[in-house]
């Protein structure tokens, strides 16, 4: 098990290095001049050259790459040319907001996706199954920004039930972070009013972010459940008079959860990257919004930083899933 874990971690490190190379190349083939961006729109040549020196952009690319990798090893993601701030500090500032959104969205996805999948499988080809199928297909097909705007229009503008965008009201001073997750921090402090406010702001973006994930969990879980319920051991269990509840929840679901777990792992990464769209529509101050603002400004270090963080999330999520596989499936543990 330890050897397996070590191999996986080494592999993840290798993949991460590949990602670093790839993002560096992509950032540098983009036909824009970061020095000109740093110097400002009216800057003359001398200011642009000064900015080029300030940011080390006058060095040859291999040297810049080496410096970037060395910086990364020291936990330093470089400097944004738009703000001059350290990208690492910015990521630390914005990541908790994204993490909170993804956790809430993932919880929604799993808590609704798995039971709905089971229900559809049990009522296969019935009205519930058809309804969830339509729901799932549209959930995957709806473009998140469109769905987001629609929810804003309905729940915020028309009904006035929920706020349009942001993470808190502009008049609310965010508390000093403990974890950086507002829901957790306000609960830890016992500030229930703040908790309520933060919750009302997270509802819409979390729904939009969770929908594609919910839909794919639902579909995969349904398919696996249908398969599992046909298995001999289920028939045997029925013959033995095991209660249907136990058959479904313990025997069938445990087996159906393996592929569902893989989907959850993948979706975690996907969700991280989908925040780019969702956070823009909802002005959610996380790394997705940070990446978009930076990309529009042609500021690539933040975009590279966000890409690495999302990549890292993909890898960690999949690593955890692989380990959980071992827990759920004893055959893998031995292998």
């Amino acid at each position: 098990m330890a050897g397996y874990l070590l191999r996986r971690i080494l592999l993840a490190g290798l993949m991460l290095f590949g990602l670093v190379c790839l993002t560096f190349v992509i950032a540098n083939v983009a036909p824009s001049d970061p020095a000109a961006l740093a110097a400002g729109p009216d800057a003359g040549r001398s200011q642009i050259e000064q900015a080029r020196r300030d940011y080390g952009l006058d060095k040859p690319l291999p040297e810049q790459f080496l410096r970037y990798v060395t910086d990364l090893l020291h936990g330093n993601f470089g400097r944004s040319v738009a703000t001059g701030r350290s990208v690492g500090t910015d990521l630390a500032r914005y990541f908790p907001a994204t993490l909170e959104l993804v956790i809430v969205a993932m919880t929604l996805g799993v808590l609704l996706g798995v039971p709905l999948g089971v229900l559809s499988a049990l009522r296969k080809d019935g009205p519930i199954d058809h309804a969830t199928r339509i729901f799932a297909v549209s959930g995957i097909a709806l473009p998140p920004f469109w769905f987001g705007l629609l929810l804003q229009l309905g729940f915020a503008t028309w009904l006035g039930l929920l706020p349009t965008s942001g993470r808190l009201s502009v008049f609310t001073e965010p508390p000093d972070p403990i974890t950086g997750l507002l829901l957790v921090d306000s609960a830890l402090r016992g500030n229930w009013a703040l908790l309520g406010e933060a919750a009302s702001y997270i509802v819409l973006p979390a729904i939009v972010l969770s929908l594609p994930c919910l839909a794919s969990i639902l579909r995969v879980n349904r398919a696996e459940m249908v398969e599992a319920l046909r298995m001999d051991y289920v028939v045997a269990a029925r013959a033995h008079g095991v209660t249907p509840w136990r058959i479904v929840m313990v025997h069938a679901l445990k087996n159906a959860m393996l592929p569902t777990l893989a989907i959850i792992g993948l979706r975690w990464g996907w969700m991280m990257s989908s925040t780019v769209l969702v956070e823009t529509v909802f002005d959610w101050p996380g790394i997705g919004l940070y990446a978009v603002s930076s990309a529009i400004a042609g500021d690539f270090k933040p975009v590279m930083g966000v890409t690495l963080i999302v990549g890292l999330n993909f890898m960690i999520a999949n690593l955890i899933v692989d380990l959980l596989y071992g827990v759920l499936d004893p055959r893998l543990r031995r292998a």
Partner: protein
Amino acid sequence: MTNDVSRRGLMAGAALLTAGMPGISWAFERDGNRKVLVFSGNQAVPVLDPHVRYDWSTRMIQQSVYDALLKYDGDPPRIIPWLAERYEVSPDGLTYTFHLVGNAKFHNGDPVDAEAVRFSFDRGLKLNAGIAWMFRDFLKPENIVAVDARTVRFTLDRPFAPFISYVPWWYVVNPKQVMANQEGSDLGRKWLTENVAGSGPFKLRRFDGNALVHLDAAADYWKGWPMADGERLSGVIYRIIREAAPRKAALQRREADMITNLTPDDLEQLARVPGVAVESHAGSNTFGIKFNCQQGPTADVNLRKAIAYAFDYDALLTIHNGQAKLQTSPFPQSMAGHIDVPGIPRKDLDKARDYLKRSQYPNGGIELEYVHVQGLESPRRIGLALLDSLRALDIKVNIVGQPWTTMVARGSKPETCPNMISVYVTPVGTDPDTVAYQYHRASWGLYYGMSHYENPEVWRMIDEARGETDNAKRMAMYAEIQRRIVDDQPEVFGMIANGLWGRRDYVRGFVFSPVRFTGEVDPYPLWIAG
């Protein structure tokens, strides 16, 4: 960005639907017994340091927390005394002496003295970023002298007539605070990115450049306030809402009291919403289609003229629902020295064909690339109008949307510059040199110099005019410069689009000034009635 069109359509539909709905009203937010005004736009505020960066949103905050020696005010823009109560210029145009008011104080209580002014200009020049380009070729740091506590003297290397027109953008920082927070020899650059050391009407309360900036009105502002004491705001919040639909919704729900970054269509929808007033003012933000004057077919002046005469100028006004004015010169109407250049091209197909015959492409039959900023709807539609207009000359137009940074990078060299690039340019001051210099050799490759316009005679005149101290002579030179530039047609001189804002009708005190960037508002005179 590929979904841009459908998204825009949807937003327009959404806004139309909402315009018909009864507004859900919230009371404006109070802080104690005073009100807070929420202003919303789409652009972040990456850097607060007034000597490092400016753009519309950034400068809106900078001018709230800092003061300068002089200030731009009103329409037409006037330069009024601010930290300086008066100034003198020596007859040779080399020495400018500013006399400071005696009562100006920084937020921490330190007096705003001549040393602070000297330090600020010195810092701006040494950092060589942001605003430095305005003076760095004319003013050496050592030639700024604090004569006594209330007098500062600038001695220029050679006469530079636009000097005063740029002074309002040089904000004064508190040297003590800045140097106390210096890291290495950065002159406080890192610290001032997110902190303020100013004397302006507002103090910084909260700063998250990607989400919101909260300013508190300084009750004891040294200059006083233009409104009755009871009307003064508690503060102003600049809230960034990137998408237009939620931003409009915020205004309707009174989550925001004033918004910008509106299209003419947005403005029409908002004008129908009860309780909302719209502001539409002729600014100085010119829109032109710049030709590559060095390479490719558009290096031929006759072809450029042919295109300029074939273009349907009325389309510019239609696309902007009439919220625009055609350019009558390379200079915007609000600029000193502007003339209506006689014979500036308007649609005339006979003339267009005439010029085409004299060009290397007498029968057309070529394809030209038109590049606009991706995601901006008006320039895209103007591209379509161009495509339509040039059919008459059998010239095809390939419309390409690219991100701003890519477009500017391509336009920086004649070899990579597209045949035609559409670009909005906002002049930084009211002096005619600000626009004239865009046509100088020194501006080649900058975003407003992407045409790579070449006329050594005009360049010489531009150089001469900036050093001329006799104003009448100088304005005559600019009149000639305008005529010559139009004659060479380095671009299709397009239009000046209005600055557009939507506000709740209880927002008072809004003062428009064409010298401000698109979207930029001076929060100082604003207040909320009722």
